[in-house]
Every structure is written in structure tokens, then in C-alpha cells.
């Protein structure tokens, strides 16, 4: 396990681009801000397991986790996140997006823990999954453990296919099926790309994702 300490009042961004299996722990001191980006699109076979643990040890911490998994071929990916709000006045956001095609398999478990001392927490987890083939599968287990009473916490998870009415609307205006599909999928993925600070990197990633999608 690799451990990172985010010092008091420190602001850190981490970007993991097509990483191998990882087990990570982030400890946040008072008033720190952590943003994690996990972007996984290059594999078409094999298996990776990611575990991300975040502990908000001091008050007034912010945590944002963005996970974009574009799983193809016979690749299998497991992702587990666990955010522990140990004390009060914390904030956490998780945006977890999966796009799966071919025979890829995804497995996502996300746990948010609000300890008894963690009052005035604002915690949200959003997980959305898009299946582009009938043979791809995704399993999700979002979980909220709440031991404090004065908190705002929510999670949502949904899995579906491309919106057919949107596809038809776009085709009615002259876009081909694949053009329409690519636009819809890219906009879905961009939720995890747009918060990246570096503009050039953002554009690079969108280009790469677009070209992979066109050949998918």
C-alpha cells in the first residue's frame, strides 16, 4: 500500500492515467483539498484492481474523486473507493463513469463512511454506467455508512444504454449513427475530464478517447 499525506491547508491533484493495480491511502489533514483522477482506457485484456482509501482526519477537508473507466476487449477492472469522514465539516464528491464495450467487465464498490464525530458533512457519490455492447457487464456496490446525524449524504447509481430518442433526434438532423453515438459517449466521459486543470492535457485526453471510440 502506498500512503500519501496531504498536509494541513495543502491542495493536491493526482492523476493516474492507465495505471496498473494500485492500493492507495490518502490521509488528509485539516483544511486540505485532494482531487484524484483515475482514467483507465488503454487496456483490452488482463485485469487490474484498484483500491483507493481516503481518510479525512482533520476538519474542513475537501475530497474529489473522478473515475473514468472505458473498458474494452476482454479487460477486467475492479475499483474500490472508500472515503472515511472521521471528523466534521468535510466535503466529498465522487464522479464515477464507466463505458463498457465488447466483453469487458467492470466491478465498482464505493463506500462512504461518516463516523459518529463527523457532523456537518456534505458527501455525494454519483455512479453512471453506459453499456455499448450486450456482452459487457458491470457490477456496482455503492454504500453509505452513516453514524452521524447532522449530515448531507447521497449516492446514486444507474446503468443503461445510449438514449435511443437522442440518437434518433441527431440522425434526423443528418448525423450518422456512429457520429451521434460518439458525441453522446464523449459528453458522458467528459464529466471526468473537464475538471482537469491543464487545458492541453484535457484536450489531449478527449482526442485520444475520441479516436479510440471511433475504432471501437
Amino acid at each position, binding site marked *: 500500500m502506498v500512503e500519501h499525506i496531504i498536509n494541513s491547508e495543502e491542495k493536491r491533484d493526482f492523476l493516474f492515467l492507465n495505471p496498473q493495480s494500485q492500493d492507495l491511502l490518502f490521509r488528509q489533514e485539516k483544511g486540505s483539498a485532494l482531487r484524484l483522477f483515475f482514467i483507465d482506457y488503454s487496456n483490452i485484456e488482463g485485469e487490474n484492481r484498484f483500491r483507493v482509501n481516503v481518510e479525512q482526519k482533520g476538519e474542513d477537508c475537501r475530497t474529489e474523486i473522478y473515475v473514468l473507466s472505458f473498458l474494452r476487449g476482454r479487460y477486467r477492472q475492479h475499483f474500490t473507493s472508500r472515503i472515511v469522514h472521521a471528523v466534521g465539516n468535510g466535503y466529498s464528491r465522487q464522479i464515477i463513469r464507466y463505458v463498457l464495450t465488447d466483453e469487458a467487465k467492470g466491478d465498482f464498490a464505493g463506500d462512504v463512511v461518516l463516523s459518529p464525530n463527523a457532523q456537518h458533512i456534505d458527501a455525494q457519490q454519483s455512479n453512471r454506467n453506459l453499456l455499448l455492447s450486450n456482452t459487457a457487464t458491470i457490477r456496482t456496490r455503492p454504500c453509505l455508512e452513516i453514524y452521524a446525524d447532522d449530515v448531507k449524504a447521497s449516492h446514486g447509481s444507474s446503468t443503461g444504454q445510449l438514449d435511443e430518442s437522442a440518437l434518433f433526434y441527431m440522425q434526423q438532423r*443528418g448525423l450518422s449513427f456512429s457520429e451521434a453515438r460518439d458525441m*453522446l459517449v464523449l459528453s458522458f466521459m467528459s464529466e471526468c475530464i473537464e475538471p482537469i486543470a491543464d487545458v492541453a492535457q484535457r484536450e489531449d485526453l478527449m482526442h485520444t478517447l475520441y479516436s479510440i471510440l471511433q475504432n471501437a
Partner: protein
Amino acid sequence: MNELLHIEDLHASIEGKEILQGINLTIREGEIHAIMGPNGAGKSTLGAVLAGHPSYEVTQGKVVFRGKDLLSMPAEQRAREGLFLSFQYPVEIPGVSMVNFMRAALNDKRAYEGKEPIAATDFLKLMREKKQLVEMADKLNNRSVNEGFSGGEKKKNEIFQMAMLEPRLSILDEIDSGLDIDALRIVANGVNALHKEDNACLLITHYQRLLDYIVPDYIHVLANGKIVYSGGKELAKELEEKGYEWLNI
């Protein structure tokens, strides 16, 4: 005038249920037709079938559009040939910007016609010009397609897209529903301004009100999947006063 659309004995069904039961209709360049009829008559179905919606199955009949077999074309080719359907319920597409969407649509049509993609500055100029037609000034470029638009904005956005794409035949499905009188006037003025000698319009409505603003050459009454009566623009008043009952439907 040249024939744009010729429908002959068109039957179509959805989920095994026959909705269109033998439609015959011819539309020529320069004409405005209106289709009226009670709820559930099959008006939207006709628009969807002509536009190539994949949920409907055509079981009989033929449709010729600009001299070509329409029914054998995929939806996007029908659009590129110049068929436009303004949706009764325009679809919200979060994350897809109006600019990117319209640029793709316009360039696809241009490619189909053997033209180069439009230059970036010309495109933005065109967007600006066409937005004015529906008085949507600054509101459009960076917004996602129809996302968070009011009912009136959605309908104006349909007419805006029609203006951008300059279709030969526009099928406008309930373009008046949910509009207040100001929005109705803007939408109708837009449609009238776009009407030319070489294009045509098929209005679908069940309110006579729209036809005060866009005056059709022909009115057809659709009921139970068939056109049961056709007449000139004066038919609108008659339907307004007498309803549909006197037609024995």
C-alpha cells in the same frame, strides 16, 4: 410545380398494432399542407415514419421523396436529402453543445451534396443570423441541445435548426403546442420567412389557431390512420366550429 413528396397507400405499425392504414398524399414545391385530427389519430406517427424512426414498421405502400424511394433510406440520409421533422417533444441532449451539433449536421449535409465543410467564421456568422430569426439572440451557442429549455425555447430551437439546414420538406409536429402568443408569433414568422418556392411544409396540429399565422394551401383531416377529408384553408374554420363529428369519424 414539381412533386416533392408522394405517399401511396402507406401502412405502418408499432408493436404489431397498425396505426397508419393507407395514407395517400402528394406535396409539391411551394405548398403548405396542414394535417389536423383528433388525439391519437396517427399524426405524429406519420411524421415519425416519414423521418425513418426505427420503432415503426412499414407494412405496405410507397413514398417517393424528390424522385427517390424514401423508405429505403436510413434516417440520416432522409435528413441530408432535405427532410426535416420538428419533434412534438424535442429531445434534451445533455453535454452535446448546440454549436457542435449544428456544425456536424450542416457539414454532413454539405458532404452529401459534395460540398466542402463550412469555414469556421462563416459557420458562426450563419448561426448568428439564423438565431435572430427566432429571437434567441445570445442564448444558444454554449448550451447543450434543448437541455433546460422551456417549452417555447425548444420549439424555437427546432425552427432555428430548420433555418440552419434549409430543408426541402419540413414536417412540423405540433409546433404550436405549449406556446404563449408571443412565442407562437415568433415561431410562425420564422416558418413563413423560410417558406420558398422550392420547398414545402407539412404542419401537424390540432388547433386551428396556428393556421391563422401560417396559412396552408390544403388541410387534411387524419382519423384512425387515414386521411378522411381534404379541403382548402377554409376547412380550418369549419372544423373549429363543428368539430370532427360531422365527418362521421
